[in-house]
């Protein structure tokens, strides 16, 4: 029922499907696509909205969510969180407990320097790659 994957805020649209309801627990603005809805809060009440929005996770939110899902054509809840979020795991566990189909997406940074070899290794790597004709 549940699985976890990684995407960038831009590339998340590759994972989304029409009929997804996004529970965005991150502070990032997500690249979206038509037919995807967002879970937002208005006047203290949960809403499924076509405009993007973020939420703060609270216990009890799942019960309220389960109450509004039948009013919308939602196939899956997509929980989006930062790379080290522990709240997202609580959210995913609560959705599992409520039997709500969902996907947990951890946002990763785009490919910045941390994704590559350390800078001090660059010269040695260059030499190895040169020997195999890559550089």
């Amino acid at each position, binding site marked *: *029922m*549940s*699985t976890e*994957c*990684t*995407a*960038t805020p*831009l*590339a*998340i649209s*590759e*994972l989304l499907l029409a009929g997804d309801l996004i529970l965005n627990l991150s502070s990032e603005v997500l690249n979206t696509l038509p037919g995807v809805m967002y879970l937002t809060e208005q006047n203290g009440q949960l809403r499924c909205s076509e405009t993007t929005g973020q939420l703060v996770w609270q216990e009890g939110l799942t019960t309220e969510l389960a109450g509004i899902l039948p009013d919308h054509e939602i196939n899956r809840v997509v929980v989006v969180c930062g790379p080290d979020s522990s709240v997202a795991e609580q959210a995913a566990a609560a959705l599992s407990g409520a039997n709500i189909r969902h*996907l947990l997406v951890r946002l*990763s940074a*785009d*490919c*910045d*320097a*941390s*994704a*590559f*070899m350390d800078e001090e*290794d*660059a010269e*040695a*790597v*260059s030499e*190895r*790659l040169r*020997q*195999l*004709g*890559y*550089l």
Partner: protein
Amino acid sequence: MDLFLLGIDGLPRWMWQQLADSGVMPNSQKLLRTGTLVPMKSALPEVSSAAWASIVTGENSGGHNVFGFTDLLDGSYTLGFTSSRTFRAAPFWSRPDAGPSLILNVPQTYPAQPLNGMLVSGFVALDLKRAVYPADAFPWLNEQKYSVDADMSLVEKGKSRFVRELLDVMRIRCEALHHYWDAEPWQNVMYVFTGTDRLNHYLWEDFEDSSSPHHQEFLDFYHEVDREIGRILERLDDRTTLAAVSDHGFARQLRSVNLNCLLAEAGYLQLKPSDRPSYGDMLPETKAFAMDPGRIYLHREGRYPNGRVTDDEAEELMQELTQWLGSVSVAGAPVTAEVVRGGDAYSGPFSHRAPDLIGMPAENVALSGRLNLSDLIEPTLINGRHTYEESSFFVRGENHGEIPADMKVENVLDVILPAREQSLRRAA
């Protein structure tokens, strides 16, 4: 043990069968009779970093994010070298249901990342200490003089010296495999022979020329690889799924053609004058540039700081480049056999980082993406090149899945771990 995944870097399917049939690899001859050997397609482009990443994650580059040994940091011209940290999809040994795993010498796994088990990284690994997880395995490996890489510069001292180095490195690695194999009841073991790729790069001409003084050395090296395969086979029972894979095929290389030179000559690439050119030297007028080995990127507005190619212009430019690459020749011979679109080749959340076009090399040609434009045909001792077609996939056992008719590196896990892959896909 559920799975033994053996990697033989750069061993073409046809060559494995040929060496097995001719008696050079007698253990392989027996092995190949007990299962199914089929040709497999490599990653696009056919580079080891991307292909091994596909084999161990079950994704193509759009899913795991490794497109080559090099890449540019997003939104910049800074060249980075891909590493285990570039992976955006989990290798099979890091999945929650993987069980204890022993992983040795798998390329693109440096620096070693934590797992349930033990891992010693393969190429490009630099420092043994950072190549080992858990750290307490380091002292024994260091004592054994375990090499994270063979010294390829020895080829300049002669091919015989180079082959001896490859043999020494392989023997110590194999001792490490058996030493740690005995240490735990592993659920998965993966071990990769990488000397085969190095041998093929530098002694391919000697393999093809039976009168070469190094021809027998080439065959003897494969005989030794086969002896080690025999040692592994002796230890496996029928309950273990045994798979053997290579990451790409091999063929003759007569010349290495620098794609950036060609792009510059045709006016697509324009660089500021510099003694050591870098991607940051590209002028805004640049329309396209290449990275190793045949990746071509449009200099797109929004993707690169000085890029000016708009989305509206991109389609026409890709058509123009595809036609041009198909017609351009060097030394009277074509440079590319085919040009593939990145949009057709990749799927997954990192497809937006893909090259726009991938040049597939013509016969006898290797493509390079060096930014040093001094040599269109680059001087090199390398005489064997990777091929997209004809890598090896072998499997035996009762628990493997169906082998697709068009087998690709990203299908390996589907076949060898069908239950785990299916449950993952069902969940998704």
